[in-house]
């Protein structure tokens, strides 16, 4: 089932603005929403790869990724300071941190400095590539 993005944001705002809902519950909702955004981002990356549009979208990629990282840092900070209710899907603060780390990794891979050819050669030699499985 597809839920329109505007409707999700409306529901999220309703929950976040309700003073009767405890902060840890709000943080769980925010964290779940952020994880879903990260999943959608990964899917979009792969769809752009399949359609051959990834390279032409690289500037937008950096903007989306930066925003996701910023949102993730905010969510994680709130969870660290005020806790999180146990989410129905069972993820923890450590899972949020690991997901954030995966985004930083993507940022470094796509938009950071890259290894020299000599470094890559040195690393590949460590894998003993002369002995393939087949």
């Amino acid at each position, binding site marked *: 089932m597809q839920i329109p993005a505007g409707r999700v944001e409306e529901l999220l705002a309703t929950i976040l603005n309700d003073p009767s809902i405890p902060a840890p519950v709000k943080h769980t909702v925010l964290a779940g929403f952020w994880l879903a955004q990260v999943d959608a981002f990964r899917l979009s990356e792969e769809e752009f790869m399949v359609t051959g549009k990834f390279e032409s979208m690289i500037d937008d990629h950096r903007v989306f990724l930066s925003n996701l990282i910023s949102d993730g840092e905010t969510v994680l900070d709130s969870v660290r300071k005020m806790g999180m209710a146990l989410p129905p899907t069972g993820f923890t603060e450590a899972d949020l941190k690991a997901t954030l780390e995966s985004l930083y990794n993507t940022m470094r891979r796509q938009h950071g400095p890259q290894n020299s050819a000599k470094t*890559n050669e*040195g690393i590949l030699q460590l894998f003993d590539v002369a002995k393939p499985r087949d």
Partner: protein
Amino acid sequence: MSRNPEIESILEAWWQAEHCHHKDRFAALQSLNTLLDKIVVRSDCRYTRDQVLDCLHSQYQELRLQRRKSERVRIAQSAQDRPQ
């Protein structure tokens, strides 16, 4: 795509760290880091985890591309097989 089993293990662990269930993300990242650390140690710490990932990045992107293509085919077939 690499046919080196050690590289394939890292690529699979990397994919899992990004695509597994939310509650398994920490464990998946730890698994990936354990595999990367073996290479770092083997290099006498001449290289970092980050450099190993960078070295394998193009292979990882190829793996993601192939898996997404396969998923698209699976979804299309599943839609065709569904009774009208």
